């Protein structure tokens, strides 16, 4: 519970800045992700379904994952105890579609997710695709060890690696630092240099 409070405090981001959409087949900085984020949510995936949807006579699978909110900072999305996140791809029957790099959720997963609003989408999307979603790792006693950026379950590193665990303290400090940077108009996600007196 204490960890939830700490994350909740960290999610209280003073985001008033918006920037043009940044480009994509690349690594987003946390600053770029935060600049497009309308809500940061910490919660557990409690429901999920996938379905076919049509556009211009063509069919694409979309997946809807319901996240029960434990802590959140709602800035451009109405506050709610649950949010439904829309992602491209999913499995219907025996057929599966995968949008390479899209965030992926599984039932029961504890996540921190950066949500945005897309024109024409009725539900929030994940900002920066898989880079805007983190899984929360806990130890046997329930204490949060850290977070791990979503690998996007469609990707398989040849070395069998998984995304590195980011200690909770470092993740929270990154959030605070990025918030300060954004307040000063800096989305480059740089670390401050400190004068040596």
């Amino acid at each position, binding site marked *: 519970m204490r960890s939830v409070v700490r994350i909740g405090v960290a999610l209280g981001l003073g985001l008033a800045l918006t920037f043009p959409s940044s480009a994509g087949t690349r690594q987003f900085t946390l600053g770029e992700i935060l600049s497009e984020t309308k809500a940061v949510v910490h919660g557990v995936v409690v429901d999920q379904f996938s379905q076919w949807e049509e556009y211009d006579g063509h069919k694409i699978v979309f997946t809807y994952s319901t996240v029960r909110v434990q802590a959140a900072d709602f800035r451009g999305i109405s506050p709610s105890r649950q949010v439904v996140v829309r992602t491209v791809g999913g499995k219907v029957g025996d057929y599966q579609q995968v949008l390479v790099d899209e965030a992926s959720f599984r039932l029961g997963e504890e996540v921190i997710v950066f949500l945005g609003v897309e024109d024409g989408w009725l539900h929030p999307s994940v900002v920066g695709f898989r880079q805007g979603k983190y899984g929360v790792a806990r130890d046997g006693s329930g204490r949060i060890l850290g977070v791990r950026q979503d690998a996007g379950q469609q990707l398989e590193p*040849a070395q069998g690696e998984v995304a590195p665990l980011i200690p909770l303290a470092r993740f929270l400090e990154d959030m605070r630092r990025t918030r300060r940077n954004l307040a000063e108009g800096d989305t480059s996600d740089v670390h*401050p240099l400190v004068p040596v007196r």
Partner: protein
Amino acid sequence: MNKKLVLLGALGVASVLGTSVFGFALLSPARKWFQGIGGGPSDLPVTFLVNSAGEESVNDSDNGVTACRNAIAEWEGEVSANLVSTGTTSSNAVGNDGVNVVSFNDPANIVRNAIAVTLVGFYTSSQTEVVNGISFGRFLDADMSFSKRLTFTTQAIGSCSGSYDIEAVQTHEAGHALGLGHSGVASALMAPSISACTFKRIAADDHAGINTIYTPGFGGGGGCTATESRLGSLSCSAPSSGPNCMVVSATVVDNCGNGVSGASVTVQLSGNTGDVLTGSASTNGSGAVSFGLRCRDAASTTYTVTVTGISASPAWDSNDAGNAPNPIVCNTR
């Protein structure tokens, strides 16, 4: 279930490549276009149809259509199999129709803040084809869509300002459509990152990846084992606006050229008027880290920038001849 698939796939690759370490990755679960191995069905050559309207921001004779077709065909030269063919279409179809289409301006509204995306489809219980010890399922459909928010160019056009190389992006997306995931090697075309005005082409790591999928008996073609970390690059810039009068950027790589994530980097700036600043931070997933010198803290106009320490795994070899220049001298704006 997913963990098991990932593990099995990783074991498959490891069994082929022995102790070699590549950065390339396969899509997971592993999928490919079948090539008739063992008398099974063959999907080759895979036909990709480029929307004939093209990308209007590409200022060439056909809005980048030929450039995209040539970019897809780049993969053909990497394998002995007759891998791909290309054509044009008036369709913008993104979906499960069995026709592989390259479309522009994001007709399905799924690209969002990416440069381009690839959507692949398959049956989860399809038959399998085994290549190099890896069991692949069968692709049924692969469509690629480019952003409606960004502008694109080609290397032949020459000048570039804020646009993305449509050939590099197209070859990258076609790599996904053929079964490749993202590579951990920064110089690879299949690396997850590409910046505007960067003209990348297929690299050795990409070659190893595509041949792992489509060349039975492929031996790897030379691998690398990570044994030490190095300072991959050290540079600085003077942003013309914003709160930073100087930004120092560094990368940490291993001896195979892969970025080292989570490496703690310490830098020190010594100004020409005697002021000293320091900073320490960890590299991101690509092995990069940046430090900002706020204008309010900049007492000097010129600074000597020194990386004084890197704590990384594998350990930093500060004496390695492959190191980037360290220190460097930088000016503020």
